[in-house]
């Protein structure tokens, strides 16, 4: 009974302020766990039950308990900042708990007497009962943690697609363990200083959550390296928004890739910078497919060096396009439509278009007798107009027919 009274007093001694913060009690128990030998009685059973929970399920967040002090420390810090009167009760608590320890060790656990659940207590005491939050130690989704965790709620408010991220292995656990003020906030501020728009932050983090685990020094080193290569601030921001994994690559790797492009394509530094700014994915992917594509352009298609340079500077996507599809389009345009190399090099957008679109439009023009791709002759149709215009404009301006005619023709192919 003595102990019982002490438990109750423990509760009473704490003012209502601290009692209000449910998660903080969790921390308090945890803190006491760290600092002291034995926790107070009423949390003992909970701790035991937590230890006996066997982790099951795919995503094992068993580190969650160890990590949660960090998560919830924030909450208590906030609380401390909010209510200035907090500092005193915490100290009081420690004192009480220390005194508790001695009594507990004297009496032994068998002598523990807990208040009966049917015992009536006053309203104030009822309000002060702390219920520890029932967070599961592991779960398949991030749903149970979103409301409790500051990191996760702030990420959702930013627009990060947590559902997509939790499908990836281990990313969910990583996000739960992050601390907002220590890990996430500095990186977000860094990205904002770089010039990345706030609306894009959500998509960047959805594609590359590992930007939050990369150290700030590394990120700054890479940005400074890019600036030494004379990339302007805006172009670096644009590159990071288009290719979120860019800043996760080491300086050596970026250097290697930039050097490769400059050497292989034979472009000036300015043009290389332009190409890389428009398609920063080039710096992220492996170089083998790009080398193969260049070989295909040179040997199979028969383009000359300067033609390849022009194609790459106009449509950089040709470097990472699918080899088979590229070959199919080129074969059709060069052999069936009888368009010479020089004309294809002049309009490289045609290599980026969908094959079916080119095929149907060309066959329609052929059927109408308007398939004229030589600039020297009258009624010339340029390749970019063939490919780039939407269907209705193409039908009315280029083919001089109606959209229904085009659809009827499509059904005869």
């Amino acid at each position: 009974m003595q102990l019982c009274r002490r438990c109750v007093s423990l509760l009473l001694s704490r003012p209502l302020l601290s009692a209000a913060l449910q998660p903080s009690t969790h921390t308090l128990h945890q803190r006491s766990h760290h600092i002291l030998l034995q926790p107070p009685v009423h949390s003992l059973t909970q701790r035991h039950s937590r230890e006996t929970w066997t982790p099951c399920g795919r995503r094992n967040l068993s580190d969650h308990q160890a990590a949660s002090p960090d998560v919830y420390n924030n909450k208590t810090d906030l609380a401390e900042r909010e209510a200035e009167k907090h500092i005193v009760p915490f100290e009081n608590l420690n004192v009480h708990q220390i005194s508790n320890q001695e009594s507990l060790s004297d009496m032994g656990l068998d002598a523990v007497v807990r208040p009966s659940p049917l015992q009536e207590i006053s309203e104030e005491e009822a309000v002060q009962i702390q219920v520890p939050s029932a967070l599961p130690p592991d779960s398949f989704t991030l749903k149970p943690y979103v409301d409790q965790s500051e990191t996760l709620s702030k990420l959702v408010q930013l627009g990060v697609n947590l559902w997509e991220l939790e499908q990836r292995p281990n990313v969910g656990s990583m996000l739960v363990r992050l601390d907002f003020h220590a890990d996430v906030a500095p990186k977000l501020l860094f990205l904002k200083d770089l010039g990345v728009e706030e609306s894009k932050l959500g998509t960047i983090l959805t594609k590359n959550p590992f930007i939050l685990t990369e150290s700030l020094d590394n990120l700054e080193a890479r940005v400074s390296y890019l600036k030494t290569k004379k990339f302007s601030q805006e172009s670096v921001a644009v590159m990071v928004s288009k290719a979120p994994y860019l800043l996760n690559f080491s300086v050596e790797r970026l250097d290697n890739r930039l050097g490769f492009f400059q050497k292989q394509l034979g472009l000036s530094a300015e043009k290389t910078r332009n190409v890389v700014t428009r398609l920063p994915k080039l710096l992220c992917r492996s170089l083998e497919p790009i080398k193969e594509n260049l070989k295909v352009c040179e040997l199979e298609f028969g383009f000359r060096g300067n033609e390849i340079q022009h194609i790459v500077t106009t449509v950089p996507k040709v470097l990472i396009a699918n080899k088979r599809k590229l070959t199919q389009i080129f074969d059709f345009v060069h052999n069936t439509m009888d368009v010479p190399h020089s004309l294809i090099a002049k309009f490289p957008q045609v290599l980026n278009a969908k094959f079916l679109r080119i095929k149907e439009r060309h066959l329609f023009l052929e059927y109408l007798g308007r398939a004229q791709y030589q600039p020297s002759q009258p009624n010339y149709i340029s390749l970019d107009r063939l490919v780039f215009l939407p269907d209705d404009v193409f039908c009315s301006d280029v083919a001089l027919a109606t959209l229904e005619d085009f659809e009827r023709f499509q059904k005869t192919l």
Partner: protein
Amino acid sequence: MTTKAARLFRRMDGLFAVYKPQGVHWKLIRDTIESNLLKELNSCPPPAPQLAVKFQLLSSGENNGSKDLILSPSMLPSLANHPLVKGPQFHKVHVGVGHRLDAFSSGVLVLGVGKGNYVLEHLCKSHVTRDYTLEGEFGRATDDFSHTTRVIEKTTYDHVTQDKLERVLAMIQGANQKALITYSQMDLRTQEAYELAVKGLLYPHGKSPPILTGLRCIHFNPPHFTLEVQCVNETQKYLRKLIHEVGLELRSSAVCSGVRRTRDGPFKAENALTRQHWTADCIIQAIAHFRKTTRKIRKSGMYRQTDGQLNSSAKIQEQIRSEIGQSDQEHVELTSPTFDRIVDRVAPGTG
């Protein structure tokens, strides 16, 4: 209180036809249509966020005057049901494919969405006829019977005239007519069989090999020629083989340069959706357009299951013939003259 997404999803139930372009696998089309439908469904506004009771530190009202923070409950939106945490509302829309077309062919492809998939099964089992346009080219023979694969032999074709081609086609059709009667699984010595044959309703039930119910040449311009075929239970490879056999019969060789399906049962090419129209609203319009046809197929399928086989088969054929309409008349025209021709030709052949 239904959401906009739920109402939209309920309208996605039924059959519709799509025009498959050449060179595309049918699975790609099915996946494209499913992802377009899902995109439209998930773009509907999500339901309002659920509120959860949370205890917060709020300053007590002006009554006390002091700045005491007390524990008070309030309903706040919970982020646990936010779409970014929960995921998209719809993960899957059941889209099924009817009689498949291989990558080389093009034409009408029937797809079923949601509850229409059950009707697709009835359609496949009911042995409907399908219309094809086959384009052939004399002079070559390949291993796959199509014009893009490896050439095995080359022959001359100067001796081939339209008359000879017509004769060969008639001979093929005669053989097929015979097969039609054989596989109809009816005792040919009964009055009933005679009456059905007179009406042209003798039809294969159950399993049968591919049978051509109609065959004619619509265009002859050596080396190119075009055939129009109506068949039952076929595959596109069989039709390419048919072109090859026509070439062999003419003492030459032929390859198939195009297989195009213009009709699959009651679904014709005029109402099939082209690539630009593979969006959710066009698909729902097409489903609404084919609603009556779908209902007829479902009813004929139910008859087949409940009644006996003979009675039901006659009913099905009548129904399907009435649905087909114009093509039905062509079909009748095709059979009668060639039937006469066969009678003439069998005599000199055997004699």
